[in-house]
């Protein structure tokens, strides 16, 4: 504290200084203007504003030839006048001079909200002799000027004034909220009298609740309501949003307000009514709030209560490897978002999501507290590709419908492009461009021929069917014979017919042998002089079926028997058998 010598006797009154803040005025003053060196003065700094609930300031000053002996004393005043509320916050110190002469303060400044308000310096004069302090006159009954003139009129002749028609009432809505649900507490003033000033001297502490002030509008609309058959003007003095922190029955203490009511008395017949201020202390009744517990919570419920909505945004939606995107998740709505935990974001494989940064704000919209919480996640793709980020869901309790709900937002897609260097890795440095025309492709390349596969498969079966049918329809095929008839075959047929009419066995054998030699010569090129024993060998070399060769061997044996054993009497049946066998064999030949 810095003290300096000043000329005693100088007095400067505090001047009102308009504050930089639009709705707040501030001033500082020292009183009285002249004090004795053994007396004290009062240093007061006052801010006056229209805001009911949030007037605060931080003073700073330098004392000259003074020192503080008491204080600071804080005085707060709330007034309702002409339909609007005003609030005054005053801080005062008792100071005493250090020496005769000038004393005062300088470098006076106030920090109101975020602004610094400079106030003018103040001075008083300090004299050696004590100065009698003027007493403030109080408005009392004895101050009545008519009494001073006409003397005191006996009380029995005068009508005792009725108590002022004014009372307080506290309102709580709803009275049975669930934990976390907003409750509105409103303190109303009901009056039929003129209110000169009011000052709340007892505000409930609201234990068990998270409390948010709801500002009262500057111009309060006075509504007329009826109570006990009489009409009153009702004015809200105080409004708070309460959020129960736990279930149970809570008692809200009474609110106490000191009022100055303007009374008008007629103390003399012909005199005008005399206005007299009257101090009244009013008090509400204690209020009970029965806080209900929340129903059994589903998994993932973090305590959010209200009507909430969730949004999610990803910026940018396309990054290159090595870059990061920001996932912004915002939960907002009417309700208490205190204590809501950050939502879990489960990244897909190939993406890393870092822990979020949180921002939060609670604001008043009318009588509703609206909160918002924003979480910002850094999302880093580990490899190129397109990823779907499942945005989190937040479960909350909606007290309006008394059930749990889920706030969610659509999933987001993050595209991670390759690094610039990975493109440069190719030989050309960039991917090849498009092709503007069809390519000439090898005949059997690509997938086109695969579509022809079924046709290529079925075609041979169709051709096979045709071949088979054609063979079946040809005459040789139907008789079971060999291929096209040959001259030798025809001759053999003719010899067989002749043999049937020949009675001599040797002649039959010779004719058949000769015919077979001609046939073998023509069909397989076996010389006619080839002995029987080599027929099988030569025909087998031409891949004639073994069964046919076996039959041919048996036929040759029978022919030789007929040729060299004709003396036997029973050759008729053998001859027929040889002819028949020759005919069957002829049919089987290829």
């Amino acid at each position, binding site marked *: 504290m810095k003290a300096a010598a000043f000329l005693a006797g100088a007095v400067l009154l505090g001047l009102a200084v308009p504050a930089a803040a639009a709705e707040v005025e501030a001033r500082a003053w020292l009183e009285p203007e002249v004090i004795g060196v053994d007396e004290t003065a009062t240093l007061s700094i006052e801010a006056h504003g229209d805001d009911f609930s949030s007037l605060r300031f931080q003073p700073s000053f330098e004392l000259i030839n003074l020192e503080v002996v008491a204080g600071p004393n804080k005085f707060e005043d709330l007034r309702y006048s002409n339909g609007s509320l005003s609030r005054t916050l005053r801080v005062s110190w008792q100071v005493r001079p250090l020496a005769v002469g000038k004393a005062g303060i300088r470098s006076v400044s106030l920090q109101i909200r975020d602004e610094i308000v400079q106030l003018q310096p103040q001075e008083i004069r300090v004299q050696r002799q004590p100065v009698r302090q003027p007493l403030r006159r109080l408005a009392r009954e004895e101050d009545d000027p008519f009494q001073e003139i006409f003397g005191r009129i006996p009380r029995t002749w005068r009508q005792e004034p009725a108590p002022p028609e004014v009372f307080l009432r506290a309102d709580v809505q709803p009275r049975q909220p669930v934990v976390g649900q907003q409750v509105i507490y409103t303190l109303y003033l009901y009056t039929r009298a003129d209110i000169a000033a009011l000052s709340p001297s007892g505000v409930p502490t609201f234990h068990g609740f998270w409390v948010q002030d709801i500002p009262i509008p500057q111009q309060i609309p006075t509504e007329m309501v009826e109570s006990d058959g009489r009409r009153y003007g009702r004015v809200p003095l105080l409004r708070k949003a309460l959020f129960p922190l736990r279930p149970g029955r809570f008692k809200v203490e009474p609110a106490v307000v000191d009022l100055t009511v303007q009374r008008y008395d007629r103390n003399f017949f012909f005199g005008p009514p005399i206005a007299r201020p009257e101090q009244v202390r009013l008090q509400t009744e204690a209020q009970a709030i029965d806080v209900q517990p929340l129903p059994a919570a589903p998994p993932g419920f973090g305590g959010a209560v209200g009507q909430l909505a969730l949004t999610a945004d990803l910026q940018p939606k*396309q990054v290159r490897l090595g870059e990061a995107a920001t996932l912004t998740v915002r939960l907002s709505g009417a309700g208490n978002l205190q204590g809501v935990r950050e939502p879990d974001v489960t990244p*897909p*494989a*190939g993406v890393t999501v870092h822990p979020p940064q949180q921002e939060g704000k609670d604001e008043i919209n009318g009588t509703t507290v609206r909160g918002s919480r924003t979480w910002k996640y850094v999302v880093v793709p*580990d*490899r*190129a*590709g*397109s*990823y*779907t980020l499942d945005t989190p869901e937040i479960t909350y309790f909606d007290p309006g419908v008394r059930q749990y709900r889920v706030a969610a937002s659509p999933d987001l897609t993050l*595209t*991670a*492009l*390759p690094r610039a260097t*990975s*493109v440069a890795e*190719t*030989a*050309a440095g960039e*991917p*090849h*461009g*498009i*092709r*503007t*025309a*069809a*390519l000439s*492709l090898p005949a059997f*390349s*690509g*997938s*086109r021929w*695969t*579509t022809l*596969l*079924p046709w*290529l*498969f*079925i075609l*041979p*079966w*169709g*051709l*096979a*069917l045709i*071949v*088979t*049918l054609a*063979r079946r329809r040809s005459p040789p*095929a139907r008789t079971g014979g*060999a*291929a096209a008839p040959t001259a030798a075959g025809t001759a053999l047929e003719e010899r067989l017919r002749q043999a049937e009419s020949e009675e001599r066995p040797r002649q039959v054998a010779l004719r058949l042998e000769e015919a077979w030699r001609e046939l073998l010569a023509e069909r397989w090129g076996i010389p006619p002089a080839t002995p029987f024993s080599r027929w099988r060998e030569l025909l087998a070399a031409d*891949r004639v*079926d073994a069964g*046919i060769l076996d039959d041919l061997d048996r036929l040759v044996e029978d022919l030789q028997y007929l040729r060299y054993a004709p003396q036997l009497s029973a050759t008729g049946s053998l001859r027929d058998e040889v002819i028949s066998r020759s005919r069957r064999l002829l049919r*089987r*030949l*290829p």
Partner: protein
Amino acid sequence: MRAASGWAAAMIALFLILFLALAGAAADPETAMAPETALAEGNRFFEKDEIEAALEAYAAGYAGDGLAGVLAYNAGTCALRLGRLPDALLWYRRAEMAMPGDPWLRDNLAMTRRALGDPPEGAGRWPAGRRWLAPAGVALAWTALALLILRRPGAGGGRGLLPLVALLACAAFAGGMLLDRYGPRAAVLLAPCPARGAGLPAGSEVRVRPLDGGGWRIVGEEDGPRCPAEAVGLVAP
């Protein structure tokens, strides 16, 4: 004689049934745009640097016919330009079926796979021998026809060989076609799919089997959860 006529009638009826079934199955798939028109339209958009529109045009004309390779390649290049690597990989895989030896396609496909970080292939690449099963059946069928024509009645050498070849032809062709239609199908994951471990990322080349009720199951992940239909792009749709 009567029995032979009945057998021939049955053969003809069977052939006609097969012919009609194949004619219906082999009809060209419907496309939103004629391939030639789609190619020209896509090229025009690409020239104007409207890559998204070009991709849509190429995709609309893709139908697996003669221009399919170029259309698929161009669609893949558009997807690559747009940074949609899994889509680019899918289109390049489709183009690879149509023009397997194309050098531009080979380069871009390799670059796309590298850019995707060479994601795990699962059991994904198409087994080389399997695609030749149905063509082998066709070749055997033609061999059987040749044997039938060349065989002379009464010739003993080919009597047991012809039925064997015919049987092998039918088995190979049926096996190839059934595997193509009902067996595991080559696919590219367009979105991450749940699987054992950390799951498979988008761009993985896998083989999938269809599931009742929609969705796909990744071969090798038979015990894993189903993969949603929109997350799987079939190489041969």
